[in-house]
């Protein structure tokens, strides 16, 4: 069986299984050639997006070993994960035990993998892919040179062109390269090639540092727990969460930090990780509150599958706690701020982070754009300049405005004498206006702006109901519009577009 994808000259094989390899098929072979050699080869279209997603899920799972996990998908067909285990192996009973643990878990989840551990990411990369056929390879400290020497030069993560050039020069293994003087090596290649080669060699041997780009910023504050029997339901997770929250709070308190964003990650037995995040409106270290907010968010949203055997609680975003503590001295005032923060967290967890909000002014003459929602509980907003004093505005704004029929206006460009809105006729007894508003044509617009002028009127009907109406368009000046030419015609034509009335809001 093989997977195919589109190449520059038609379909090519992008992955092969063992049976296909035995028949002599390899990556990069043209699909037509492969079919000619073995007509019964089963092929399926490759789905690189799903491959990448699967690798990402696996990398999240691998965070159980180290907070710093990087995905390596640079070279097709040699994708993998790089895990920085510096100073962490003893937590799993040493390096051998760590590799065994990893191999056992991956095998149980049905994920074939080749593991290697070495002093540098470069040499581990090389050994995992080109090392001797054994599922686990461990290079002792300082043993990189001997371990790498017999491997082919491809193992240095080089381009195909560089590899070809090296083989023309008769340099087939890394050992051949290491025997040469470095300065000469760089000069043999034109342009960047030589530098890349030397840098890759140095990285593999550890004389040049290599920085991994972790998939998520490693949280500094995290606690976690292994469980013997996989957890399959919410109460189980809840128990572990209640245990974890105090120890996370303790380590946060030691550093004088409070959590602003919490993540609960459950590592599943099938090589996936599932997580649940929640934001807090003010930094908090109260264990009961941390656990409660996560529970309100809904532990049932964690997709536990066939069970999770490890749970991690991390504070991804933290803030210094000092500001809160000074408030506590003020007694009731400080208590109230804490109470409000706790309330906002619970609301946010249950209803979504945007459910509770304040309204904030935004500079715009168009009523529907003159305010923005700001999530409740965040720091003070940037002080805006006081808006110009406006005439009365309605308390509720209909957005979008609703059409109104006006059978009769007292003057063509005056307020209506009566109007029909939502099938009810209103007779206007008093009116104030117009207040003329139009869109900010001088500003680059992110959304389509109305192109006609609006004349707003505050009207009161005989029953005392007060409405905010506007007429869109000016008589004589804006009652025609150009229509783009119909297919087959070249001239755009003028069409009648009489001014229209709209209901935009309701006053108290």
């Amino acid at each position, binding site marked *: 069986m093989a997977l195919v994808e589109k190449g520059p000259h038609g379909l090519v094989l992008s992955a092969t299984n063992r049976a296909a390899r035995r028949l002599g098929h390899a990556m990069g072979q043209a699909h037509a050639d492969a079919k000619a050699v073995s007509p019964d080869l089963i092929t399926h279209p490759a789905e690189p997006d799903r491959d990448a997603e699967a690798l990402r899920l696996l990398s999240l799972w691998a965070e159980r070993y180290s907070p710093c996990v990087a995905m390596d998908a640079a070279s097709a067909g040699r994708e993998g994960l790089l895990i920085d285990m510096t100073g962490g192996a003893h937590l799993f009973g040493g390096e051998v035990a760590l590799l065994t643990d990893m191999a056992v878990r991956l095998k149980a989840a049905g994920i074939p993998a080749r593991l290697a551990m070495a002093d540098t990411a470069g040499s581990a990369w090389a050994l995992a892919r080109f090392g001797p056929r054994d599922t686990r390879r461990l290079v002792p400290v300082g043993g990189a040179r001997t371990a790498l020497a017999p491997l082919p030069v491809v193992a240095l993560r080089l381009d195909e062109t560089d590899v070809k050039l090296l083989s023309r020069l008769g340099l087939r293994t890394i050992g051949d390269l290491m025997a040469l003087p470095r300065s000469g090596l760089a000069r043999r290649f034109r342009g960047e090639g030589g530098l890349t080669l030397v840098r890759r060699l140095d990285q593999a041997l550890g004389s040049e540092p290599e920085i991994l780009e972790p998939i998520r910023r490693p949280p500094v504050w995290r606690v976690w727990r292994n469980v013997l029997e996989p957890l399959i339901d919410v109460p189980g997770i809840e128990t572990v969460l209640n245990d974890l929250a105090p120890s996370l709070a303790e380590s946060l308190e030691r550093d004088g930090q409070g959590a602003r964003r919490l993540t609960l990650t459950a590592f599943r037995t099938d090589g996936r990780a599932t997580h649940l995040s929640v934001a807090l409106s003010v930094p908090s270290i109260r264990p009961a509150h941390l656990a409660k907010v996560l529970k309100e968010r809904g532990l049932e949203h964690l997709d536990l599958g066939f069970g999770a055997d490890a749970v991690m609680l991390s504070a991804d975003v933290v803030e210094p706690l000092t500001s809160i503590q000074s408030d506590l001295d003020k007694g009731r005032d400080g208590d109230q701020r804490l109470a409000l923060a*706790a309330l906002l967290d619970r609301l946010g967890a249950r209803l979504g982070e945007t459910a509770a909000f304040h309204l904030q002014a935004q500079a715009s003459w168009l009523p529907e754009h003159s305010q923005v929602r700001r999530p409740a509980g965040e720091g003070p907003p940037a002080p805006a300049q006081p808006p110009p004093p406006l005439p009365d505005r309605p308390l509720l704004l209909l957005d979008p405005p609703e059409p109104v029929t006006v059978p009769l206006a007292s003057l063509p460009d005056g307020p209506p004498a009566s109007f029909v809105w939502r099938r009810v006729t209103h007779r206007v007894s008093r009116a104030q206006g117009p207040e003329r508003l139009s869109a900010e044509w001088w500003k680059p617009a992110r959304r389509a702006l109305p192109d006609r002028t609006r004349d707003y009127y505050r009207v009161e009907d005989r029953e005392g109901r007060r409405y905010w109406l506007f007429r869109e368009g000016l008589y004589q000046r804006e009652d025609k519009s150009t229509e783009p030419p119909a297919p087959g015609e070249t001239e755009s034509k003028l069409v009648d577009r009489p001014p229209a009335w709209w209901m935009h809001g309701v006053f108290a």
Partner: protein
Amino acid sequence: MVPLPTPSQPCDNPALAPRAARLGLEEAWGEGAPGRVAATLFGLMRAAEGDERPVVVAASSVWLREQGRWFRDGLKIAGLPDRRLLFIETPKDAQTLWALEECLKSDAVAGAVAAADTISLLASRRLDMVARQAGATCLLLRTQPAKDISAARRRWSIAPAPSAPHPYDDEAPGAARIAVSLTRSRGEPPGDWILEWDDETHRFRLAAGLADHGLVPDGRSVVAA
């Protein structure tokens, strides 16, 4: 937690009751969008006045789509800074009631105005209790005139009324007036009042019965036809 005040002291004018006499749950009904807007402003004033804590305004997305969205430039006539007005938009009425109870229970808000149509007797009792414990005022806006039993201390029916004469322009609407009627209460006789919005103090006052004749002696105004 504030100790529970003595239950509902009857007062002369429940529409402008002092804070101690309006703690707990109340219900209001207003016809159509203008009635609901009037009831919202009435509830905001009752919740905010005499307390420094934030005021919650809550409704479901459906309600907001039908009645209109809260508009900052208009709501600022209530005289509350942006940070004191906390809006909550919920998917459904059930969540509105949950959010309302959480808000009142938290002891962090001065009061709430919430739109919710169905509420059980038990839920209303609980709301009333947590509101009184937290020293908060809660006004529940109904879209139908309520006939069911509830633990609300007062039940209002609110409608807009023709506005006061504009000082400079005969053609223009003046200060907003609303007709408030108390349809049910514990220990208070029902009554009708015309309230007028005062832009300077950011609260309602009793409308003068006729132009410049002052308050009607018994504290209730005659409806100006």
